[in-house]
């Protein structure tokens, strides 16, 4: 196996294939600058019981112009009426700094309570909003200021997914992939795709082009890397960690592995797998070059604006949307090659856990 545990897997991968993904680099640099600005702006607002958590492009290190800040005040502690004032202060300081506020779904820009995320996994009370917050917390989240509440909540969530997974702990299958977590990640992706159509109807097509581009690329990326995170338990863990599960039925080490693994951004997770499994260069280029083009397109104010305002009837002939279509098809080919063709083990896991 190639060792991608040290250093930056994206830079290592880039050097290996001899390409330069400028838009990805640019987005990461701008994320770093934005993080510094946010750290300063939000200084003193978090506590050990309430963490300021951001999601979306900032958490993925894919910051482009016009990116908004999807944030929540994640509370894991005693109820305190002051939490509302803190949340309002976060919103106010972000506005003063000129950040675009979160979209209109109501999922971000407010308070989130850890109890719902931890206790309501599945069942009638696990609402669309709750699932979204929980899965995004796993797949693309970053805290500013004190991280304690964020870290504790993530630990709890992984603990619930893995400790409640009797098949993982006691099953006789040769693979050790957390199936309950995997199913929730798959469920979330399918929900996003169905909700896309609901928004298309509810908003009379407004913003369709941009949402569709994101669905084809960044949303699909976190679905893919969510699956890879689950597969990492089987493919990228040490024998000691698997032995703990196989012999003692203990998921503790696996939970810790997952919690640390998902601290990588989705693109870093993808790069780690491409390096570790020595995936074909052709596939690497398809995935990263297409994603690079996608970020470049989002960073182009004119094209982004065009996508955002694209009337539904102009979709078939619009050159900007045509560009999105071409980029996303190459990205899809890359994902298909990665999950089904280039590596036998990954194909086996994908069929077993992802399809049937």
């Amino acid at each position, binding site marked *: 196996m190639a060792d991608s545990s040290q250093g930056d897997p994206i830079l290592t991968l880039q050097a290996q294939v001899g390409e330069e993904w400028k838009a990805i680099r640019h987005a990461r640099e701008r994320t770093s600058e934005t993080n510094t600005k946010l750290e300063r702006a939000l200084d003193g607002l978090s506590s050990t019981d309430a963490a300021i958590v951001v999601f979306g492009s900032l958490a993925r290190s894919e910051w482009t112009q016009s990116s908004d800040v999807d944030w929540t005040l994640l509370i894991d502690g*005693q109820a305190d009426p002051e939490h509302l004032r803190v949340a309002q202060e976060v919103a106010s300081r972000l506005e003063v700094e000129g950040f675009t506020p979160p979209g209109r779904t109501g999922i971000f820009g407010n308070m989130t309570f850890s109890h719902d995320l931890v206790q309501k996994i599945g069942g009638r009370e696990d609402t669309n909003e709750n699932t979204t917050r929980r899965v995004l917390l796993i797949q693309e989240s970053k805290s500013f200021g004190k991280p304690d509440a964020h870290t504790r909540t993530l630990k709890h969530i992984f*603990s619930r997914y893995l400790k409640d997974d009797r098949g993982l702990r006691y099953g006789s299958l040769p693979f050790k992939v957390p199936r309950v977590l995997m199913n929730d990640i798959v469920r979330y992706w399918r929900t996003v795709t169905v909700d896309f159509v609901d928004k298309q109807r509810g908003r009379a097509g407004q913003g369709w082009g941009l949402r569709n581009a994101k669905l084809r690329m960044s949303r699909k990326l976190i679905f893919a890397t969510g699956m890879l995170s689950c597969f990492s338990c089987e493919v990228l863990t040490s024998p000691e960690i698997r032995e703990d599960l196989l012999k003692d039925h203990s998921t503790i080490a696996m*939970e*810790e592995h997952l919690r640390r693994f998902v601290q990588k951004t989705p693109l870093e997770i993808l790069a780690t797998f491409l390096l570790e499994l020595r995936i074909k260069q052709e596939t690497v280029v398809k995935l990263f070059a297409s994603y690079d083009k996608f970020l470049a397109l989002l960073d182009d104010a004119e094209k982004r604006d065009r996508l955002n305002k694209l009337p539904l009837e102009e979709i078939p002939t619009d050159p900007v949307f045509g560009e999105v279509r071409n980029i996303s098809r190459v990205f899809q080919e890359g994902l298909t090659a990665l999950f089904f063709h280039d590596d036998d083990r990954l194909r086996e896991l994908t069929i077993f856990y992802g399809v049937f």
Partner: protein
Amino acid sequence: MRPIGFSTGALAYGDFRKGLAILRGKHTTTRELSALRETELAPLVAALDSLDLSGYTYISVHAPSKFRVEDEPAIVGLLGVVASRGWPIVLHPDAIRNAAGWRSFGPLLLIENMDKRNISGRTVRELSEIFAELPQAGLCFDVGHCRQVDPTMNEAHLILRAFGDRLRQLHISEVNSRSTHDPLSSAAIDAFRAVASLVPENIPVILESPVREEDVGREVEQARLALPVLPTGSWARARSADLHSAIA
């Protein structure tokens, strides 16, 4: 049977004589003499010869948790009297300013893992940094603090596996969200049972639950429920691998 006793500070805030008096005849064999506040240390040390400590199989002293930096040498000096009796000294790592003085206590110094208010001494990684400075020091594992930091008890598991060979004493109580000690609840008991197999039977257990005199026996029984004795060897097997390094 596990040796279980109390901290004098839990039973009689700031009054070790009263704490010891409450425990007399309660069939507990371990004691921690508390000098958590700096002003309590000198009187405690001065009184050591006059205290009736017969019948106890284990005695430790909790060092002050807060003091001025210029007072550190004097505190280390007073605790030297404790160390000369061969009694372990429990210390909060954030109290240390100059590790050299504390290093002189060797394995008699027990570092306690901290609660969520602190920014060090809470996790395997943070404790590793402290033990690097104090290579001979032992661990006083506060299972209540650790549950407050990580209620899944995974960190407790990892700490006990990483530092099992340093484990000399256990602190047990419920630590609430305000970081104060409470008597053991059923939720805490359930949580602590998850790591009981990693604590050898002979490790002294010190309760820090603030209870009334008439509730001392009941709280000891609650502690026994929280820390059942498991078949010999299960903890040793669990300690055999340093899982933290494998994960990292």
